[in-house]
């Protein structure tokens, strides 16, 4: 282990645009993905800002109704398909899965690069169609509005999502094969870091779910273009059938978003409390349980869509069951802190943020699983608040925590700790101010996707918009300093946080082949009792 930057590493081994565009190094592809998803996050974030500005006043006075409808639709599409789903797996997963298991690269490096190109193809296609007219169905594309009634660019945008789906499938395939076949000697399944278990479970969902989305998009396009009757009753179809197909993918997609973040949390919480994870087998198995149960709950999106009462009962009880593995994780992370030696660097602040917000998101999810409550709050701002607590409070918190935690490894530089802590705090405050009032709005009955709303809802909407502006500032600060510190930050040692895990046993930034000599694993993950606590102020970024 060296505390000096190695002379040659994956970032400087070759120069020039071609060396990046044709790279097969998973670490460089991770950075390419980082650039792509960050760009899409900024696009999706701009749409969010426009939504919040429109909702500052009850009247629909900033945008035309049609324009507003396109804006919230694109916010959803861009954030879900082009940021949240690829975010952690394609950036952190790509970088870390091979390193954590002691491999030189993913099993199929060329497929990995192809996956990035497919992602960009889909993203550019979607962005192009935004520019030439947009789409206004909501990210859910419900029929028959999407197939028969809207005049916007449904088919091109859906095609963009279709193509991007294949980038997900390739990434999932790559992870599954890599984790099965390329683990270092001695790295048995129950010695794997939980980040790997989480990505394994995620990959299974991606492989099983994404093709269903692809098929659904094809059916949608066939009905819209050739008027084949699948979904529109006027053509002999069934509009609720579309909802079944759509949610069969899109509900598990929520777990595609949250499971990798849970993997990140397991890595960080152990490091900053210097403890083994509490209940390793339970945390690992709960990822698989969530992946499995996640496929059996899609009907809870249709409690008021004319689904039978019996189907409602089945989907409700299964939805309640998902809470158990989720609760197991939260309890085990909390128990990991017990009798630890806890420090509060930026990644750990994101963990605390995640635990608080994910807990609220999960508990409100139970309220939505509860049939008698869902009837009232379905399609209101209560839902909007709930899934933002999961997707933003959970996934984005995990993503930012992970990005800070591994940034010294990725860039070889330390991020500025003071700014890191400050922005984590700003994000936490801004997030709650944005989304907590939406729970109240939802129970009051404010429907989602409303361009204008009754006046009595204004105060809570103003609070939400104020929070969003704070949240926006909180997101921009790390964007600036993470880019800045790549060149000008303090040089990082190979393991500034004193973490276990194979990825820390190689120089920072790592060489292209990751490990100078193949590592051998002789113990369980998170053996923090066997390594010293980094001295006071060891991390002085």
């Amino acid at each position, binding site marked *: 282990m060296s505390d000096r930057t190695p002379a040659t590493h994956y970032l400087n081994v070759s120069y020039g645009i071609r060396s990046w565009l044709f790279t097969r190094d998973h670490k460089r592809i991770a950075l390419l993905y980082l650039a792509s998803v960050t760009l899409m996050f900024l696009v999706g974030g701009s749409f969010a800002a426009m939504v919040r500005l429109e909702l500052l006043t009850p009247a629909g006075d900033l945008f035309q109704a049609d324009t507003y409808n396109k804006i919230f639709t694109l916010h959803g599409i861009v954030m879900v398909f082009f940021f949240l789903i690829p975010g952690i797996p394609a950036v952190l997963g790509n970088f870390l899965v091979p390193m954590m298991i002691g491999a030189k690269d993913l099993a199929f490096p060329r497929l990995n690069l192809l996956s990035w190109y497919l992602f960009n193809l889909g993203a550019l296609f979607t962005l192009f169609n935004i520019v030439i007219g947009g789409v206004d169905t909501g990210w859910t594309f419900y029929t028959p509005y999407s197939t028969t009634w809207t005049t916007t660019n449904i088919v091109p945008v859906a095609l963009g999502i279709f193509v991007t789906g294949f980038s997900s499938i390739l990434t999932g395939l790559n992870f599954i094969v890599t984790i099965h076949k390329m683990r270092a000697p001695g790295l048995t399944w129950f010695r794997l870091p939980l980040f790997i278990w989480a990505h394994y479970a995620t990959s299974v969902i991606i492989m099983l779910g994404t093709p269903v989305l692809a098929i659904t998009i094809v059916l949608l396009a066939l009905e819209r273009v050739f008027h084949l009757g699948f979904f529109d009753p006027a053509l002999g179809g069934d509009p609720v059938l579309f909802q079944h197909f759509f949610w069969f993918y899109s509900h598990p997609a929520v777990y595609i978003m949250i499971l990798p973040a849970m993997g990140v949390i397991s890595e960080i919480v152990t490091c900053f409390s210097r403890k083994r994870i509490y209940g390793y087998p339970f945390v690992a198995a709960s990822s698989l349980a969530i992946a499995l149960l996640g496929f059996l709950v899609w009907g809870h999106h249709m409690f008021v869509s004319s689904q039978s009462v019996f189907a409602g009962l089945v989907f409700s009880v299964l939805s309640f069951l998902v809470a158990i593995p989720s609760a*197991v994780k939260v309890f085990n992370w909390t128990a990991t*802190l017990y009798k630890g030696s806890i420090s509060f660097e930026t990644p750990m602040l994101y963990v605390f943020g995640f*635990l*608080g917000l994910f*807990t609220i998101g999960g508990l409100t999810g139970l309220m939505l699983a509860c049939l*008698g409550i869902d009837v*009232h709050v379905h399609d209101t701002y209560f839902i909007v608040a709930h899934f933002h607590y999961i997707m933003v409070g959970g996934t984005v918190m995990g993503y930012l925590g992970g990005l800070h935690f591994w940034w010294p490894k990725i860039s070889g530089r330390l991020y500025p700790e003071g700014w890191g802590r400050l922005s984590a705090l700003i994000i936490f405050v801004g997030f709650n101010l944005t989304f907590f009032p939406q729970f109240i709005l939802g129970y*009051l009955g404010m429907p989602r996707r*409303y361009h204008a709303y009754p006046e009595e809802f204004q105060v809570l909407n103003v609070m939400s918009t104020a929070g969003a502006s704070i949240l926006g500032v909180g997101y921009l600060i790390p964007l600036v300093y993470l880019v800045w510190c790549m060149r000008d930050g303090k040089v990082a040692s190979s393991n500034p946080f004193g973490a276990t895990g194979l990825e820390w046993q190689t120089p920072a930034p790592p060489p292209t082949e990751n490990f100078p000599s193949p590592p051998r694993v002789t113990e369980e993950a998170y053996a923090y*009792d066997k390594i010293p606590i980094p001295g006071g102020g060891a991390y002085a970024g």
Partner: protein
Amino acid sequence: MRPDLPLFPVQGSAEAGQVDLLFLATVGLSLFFALLVSSLLLAFAIKYRRRPTDKPPAPIQGSHALEIAWMVVPLILAMATFVWGADVYFRLNRPPDDTMTVNVVGKRWMWKLQHPSGRREINELHVPVGTPVRLNMTSEDVIHSFFVPAFRVKADALPGRYTTVWFKATRPGRYHLFCAEYCGTQHSGMIGWVEAMEPEAFQAWLAGGPAEVSMAAAGERLFNDLGCVACHNPNSGARGPRLDRLYGSQVKLASGEGLIADEAYLRESILYPAAKVTAGYQPVMPTFRGLVNEEGVLELIEYLKSRVAGQAGEPAPELRPAAPPPERKPQP
């Protein structure tokens, strides 16, 4: 200016109280777990914060007993909540027998409602307090959703089928009506009011307004105009089954299945006659798709309902043949 800041919706129906009780119970349960987790996090973060003298903490192997405990306890609570929620859902989905029906057609971007008396409304619904009201809903175009927050009820109105929602208003007042399923440009303009009135005031309101024939009478006219009566009468040589006393009765199908003749069945049989053929009859009925719109179908159904709605013990009035219009003569 005093900012208007409601924090909890008004309760305008009997069901609202049940939903709120369930909701507040789950809020309480959630608060308990959220406070449990956050106070443990806070306590551990303070108690076990790193000190300069810290040695690597001793590892703690998990405890199976604890793991099982924090799976089983939440499981029990979750199942209890599920049962409670299911019970409320049953009640929200099962209208009582003595409901008053109002027909609803969603259309971009308005709610068109019609009372059996014939009185029509757009984006307003007048109902009496104390009487359960059942809405029989459909849509002319895309999916809409009928949502009255004060009553805590919501149900999608779908094209091509009937859905039902019911409520019993308990307090006179004017309550928001929203479309909750995104339906295009003016989705947020597809809103209106439910006016819950004292029964006498409601009767006065129902009797007022422009003179309109009842839905059943309008349906009878359609029934004759469309020539339905040519086959559906006892003297037609049994080309079509008799329709008096049909609504709500048990029907035996040619496929051997049985069903209760509800609104959805009647609608399907008018628009897709071959879908469910009554036992003993040939599938000879032509479709009336394109000849009658959703509102017309609702009127026909009201007419058929009126054929069974006679006084108890009194024979239901016969479907009276009128001169069939020449353009729809039955095939020989």
